[in-house]
């Protein structure tokens, strides 16, 4: 099914009406060409005698009409029908003699009536506007009444009419007689809605989408339900399937709908395909029952035997869908997925208690950190910190753990940190080595910055960190500008001394030819691409990356565009000037970059000072004055330097502005894992029995061949539950010291319980916290490397418009 064939609005005109009118015309022709003939007999003679009397009356009527016509006056007599008025007056009870004798009075009254635009029969006779309209309406009504009869008959009846028999035939004959007598108004015909009903308007694909989606869902559900029941009741699945097919009388097949989802998906009957291939329901079920290999083998045999391709495709798809439903059912049945709301809540509660009881580290993270720090000091110099001792006592008091248990947990934290840091892979080692080379013991913040920046450059040079997609956009923008330049007409006539490809005044824009406007647009796009890339470089690599990127682009423009302008006819000097102008328009001049860097530094410094405002308030007055003076003079970085001096003096780390964080190695490790597992769409089994879950997780972990898979769970369950479970999963799966299966199985079991309607748990990557702070600090002493917060979270893009 072509995907776009389903969604459409269609109008069709199924013309049954003209055929009906043709028949009317034929009938009218007959009536007109065959006048009625009568034989005279005695009875007829009597009639003729009576008609003579009528003729005499007619003569009298004409005389009365003549008299009345004179009385009406020439104007009214011109449009009125005196004969008809006489008839009207007779119907009112006057004799012809009375009319003749009182013609003048009656004429005066008629003139009066005419001026008041009387309607009805008399108005019609008088020729008043209203009267004529009434007459017309009467004619139309005559049409309408007949056509209403026509419309009352079904289109099928009308379409099959061969003559003028039956109800519709009577209507046709009636209509034909009216036509013959000239009583049919074509305007009246068209004004009647009846025949319009014979032109059908079809609207397709409007409502069908939702209905088809519901049908597909129901079909899938029914398939799985059928298999599940068979399995649970211990019946032979193949027999059950064959019986089901026989009962339904068809092999059904779900066809993918619009845009690859169930929207406009449909269930089709694959019986013809099965028949074409000579399959019985029993044979169909037997093949499905033997599994994927049997289906594939059967399909290959059929193909080799020259079976009809479409039939084979449909049959194979139907088999695969049944097999898939059976697997889902088997999986559910095997895992005993019969969770109730109550069990969900119980599992949820159990999980919450588990987190608190089984993992006191999560309960009192800060205290455990202090114990761990103290433990590290003990390892270094044999002296514990007082803070660590206090924290140890608080943990023992709160949890009832023994000191040994607390130390074991704290040691676990240290090991985790060490392992996680080690897991940051080779690139991080490169970075550390580079830092070592740059000089570990540097105390000066500026020097640290420079050394660290150098180190990162070296890492960046080897890392896979690139801005591939953005770079593509930028490259494309370069090409767009060149193509638009190629599109300029009459290049030889360009006045290069006044040629400005990026006009910025209205007078320059006014009257600009389209080809030049295209250049302006292209340059604008190029500016946008470059600025986006510069922003991204700064976000990920700080000032150094920004500067490097800006320099790169500037060099590229200077390298590529002079030749372009020269090829368009510019002299060397003119080409250089144009290129320089382009560089300026793109914001790539060195001074532009400097301004950006300065502004950024000041902003960061200001943020840092704001963050430390309470600390500053507690400093000696002269220090406060010095800092405030520097701020007042606009020397934000100077103010920060004063603050840092004080911090270092007090034994604290100085504030280091965000310089660089190198996320690539860890991110790539995660990405690699994700890529490896993406195609497999791993399914974590569901059961209240942890052992089953353990096996599932174990299999999953084995499959991924990742020692420490970094996974999270994306689901639609309540946010709180999800967050809790995600944390637990991360901790459980990441940490080598935690019993991976014990924790993960509960987390997964609980999550799956909550998600019981969707028992498949999709596993997606989460970027884990990148524990470089401690590592770097440990290695080089005073530098703190803020890890950009955004690397810890995946941004959520809200919807699409």
């Amino acid at each position, binding site marked *: 099914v072509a995907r776009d064939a389903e969604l459409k609005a269609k109008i069709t005109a199924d013309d049954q009406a003209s055929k009906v009118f043709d028949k009317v015309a034929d009938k009218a022709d007959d009536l007109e060409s065959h006048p009625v003939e009568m034989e005279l007999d005695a009875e007829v003679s009597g009639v003729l005698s009576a008609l003579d009397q009528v003729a005499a009356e007619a003569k009298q009527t004409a005389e009365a009409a003549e008299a009345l016509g004179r009385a009406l006056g020439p104007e009214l007599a011109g449009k009125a029908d005196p004969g008809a008025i006489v008839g009207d007056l007779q119907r009112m009870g006057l004799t012809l003699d009375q009319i003749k004798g009182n013609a003048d009075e009656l004429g005066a009254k008629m003139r009066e009536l005419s001026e008041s635009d009387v309607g009805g029969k008399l108005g019609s006779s008088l020729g008043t506007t209203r009267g004529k309209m009434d007459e017309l309406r009467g004619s139309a009504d005559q049409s309408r009444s007949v056509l209403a009869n026509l419309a009352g008959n079904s289109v099928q009846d009308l379409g099959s009419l061969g003559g003028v028999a039956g109800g519709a035939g009577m209507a046709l004959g009636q209509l034909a007689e009216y036509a013959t007598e000239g009583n049919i108004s074509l305007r009246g015909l*068209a004004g009647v809605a009846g025949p319009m009903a014979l032109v059908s308007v079809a609207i397709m694909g409007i409502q069908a989408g939702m209905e088809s989606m519901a049908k597909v869902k129901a079909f899938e559900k029914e398939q799985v339900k059928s298999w599940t029941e068979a399995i649970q009741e211990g019946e032979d699945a193949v027999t059950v399937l064959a019986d089901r097919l026989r009962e339904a009388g068809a092999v059904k097949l779900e066809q993918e709908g619009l845009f690859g989802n169930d929207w406009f998906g449909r269930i089709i009957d694959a019986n013809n395909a099965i028949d074409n291939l000579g399959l019985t329901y029993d044979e169909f079920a037997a093949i499905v029952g033997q599994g994927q290999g049997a289906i594939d083998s059967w399909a290959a045999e059929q193909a080799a035997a020259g079976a009809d391709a479409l039939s084979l495709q449909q049959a194979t798809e139907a088999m695969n869908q049944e097999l898939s439903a059976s697997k889902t059912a088997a999986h559910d049945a095997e895992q005993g997925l019969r969770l109730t709301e109550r069990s969900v809540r119980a599992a949820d509660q159990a999980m919450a208690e588990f987190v608190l009881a089984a993992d006191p580290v999560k309960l009192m993270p800060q205290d455990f950190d202090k114990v761990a720090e103290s433990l590290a000091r003990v390892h270094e110099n044999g002296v514990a910190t007082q803070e660590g001792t206090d924290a140890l006592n608080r943990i023992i008091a709160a949890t009832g753990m023994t000191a040994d248990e607390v130390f074991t947990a704290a040691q676990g934290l240290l090991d985790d940190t060490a392992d996680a840091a080690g897991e940051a892979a080779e690139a991080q080692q490169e970075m550390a080595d580079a830092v070592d080379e740059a000089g570990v013991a540097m105390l000066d913040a500026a020097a640290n910055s420079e050394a660290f920046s150098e180190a990162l450059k070296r890492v960046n040079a080897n890392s*896979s960190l690139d801005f591939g997609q953005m770079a593509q956009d930028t490259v494309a923008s370069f090409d767009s500008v060149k193509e638009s330049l190629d599109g300029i007409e009459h290049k030889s006539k360009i006045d290069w001394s006044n040629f400005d490809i990026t006009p910025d005044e209205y007078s320059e824009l006014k009257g600009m030819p389209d080809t030049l406007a295209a250049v302006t647009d292209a340059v604008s796009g190029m500016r946008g691409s470059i600025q986006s890339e510069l922003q991204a470089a700064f976000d990920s690599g700080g000032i150094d990356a920004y500067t490097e990127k800006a320099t790169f682009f500037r060099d590229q423009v200077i390298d590529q565009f002079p030749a372009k302008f020269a090829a368009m006819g510019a002299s060397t000097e003119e080409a250089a000037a144009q290129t320089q102008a382009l560089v300026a328009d793109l914001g790539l001049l060195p001074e532009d970059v400097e301004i950006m860097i300065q502004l950024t530094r000041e902003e960061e410094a200001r943020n840092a000072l704001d963050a430390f405002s309470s600390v500053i308030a507690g400093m000696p007055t002269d220090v406060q004055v010095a800092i405030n003076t520097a701020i007042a003079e606009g020397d934000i970085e100077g103010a920060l330097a004063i603050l840092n001096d004080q911090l270092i003096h007090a034994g604290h780390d100085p504030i280091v502005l965000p310089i660089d964080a190198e996320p690539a190695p860890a991110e790539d490790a995660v990405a690699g894992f994700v890529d490896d597992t993406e195609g497999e769409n791993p399914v974590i089994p569901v059961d209240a029995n942890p052992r089953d879950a353990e096996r599932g997780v174990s299999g999953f972990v084995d499959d991924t061949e990742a020692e420490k898979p970094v996974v999270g769970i994306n689901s639609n369950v309540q946010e709180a539950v999800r967050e809790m479970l995600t944390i637990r999963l991360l901790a459980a799966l990441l940490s080598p010291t935690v019993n991976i299966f014990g924790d993960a199985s509960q987390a997964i079991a609980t999550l799956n319980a909550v998600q019981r309607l969707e028992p498949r748990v999709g596993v997606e990557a989460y970027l884990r916290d990148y524990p470089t702070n401690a590592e770097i600090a440990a290695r080089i002493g005073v530098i703190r490397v803020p890890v950009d917060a955004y690397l810890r979270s995946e941004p*959520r893009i809200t919807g699409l418009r």
Partner: protein
Amino acid sequence: VSGAADVRAFAADVRRFADAAPGESIAAVDEAITAQLRRDTGGDGSLSRGRKLGRATTSVRRKRGEAEVVPSGSRNVWGILQGGTSAHVVRAKRGGFLATPYGPRRQVHVSGAPARHTFTEGAATGIADAQRDMERRWAQLGS
């Protein structure tokens, strides 16, 4: 002119109407769907956060006695507008990054977008317009 000839002429008008009216009145449907598309996309038929998906447009096909409006341009955009999306994660290729309003990312989580039923909403309005248009044309027959 005889009454029969009048009726025969009218029948011819009806045939011409049936042949031509769908093609003439379908413009009302197209206009309504396009107007709905503009309303739902902010004017240009593309998604502000999915420019790379392209633009959705419409296409009108006319034949004797029938005419239809079908989605054209970006099927993805039509799919999202008509049927919405479920929440999903977009990942960059290995070694690459996604350009997001928050800076480069390995992956982003895109929340679901509600179905706007753009085509069907527009079509429902447009078909009603087209029907009125066809009735007006019908009423002019024989005049």
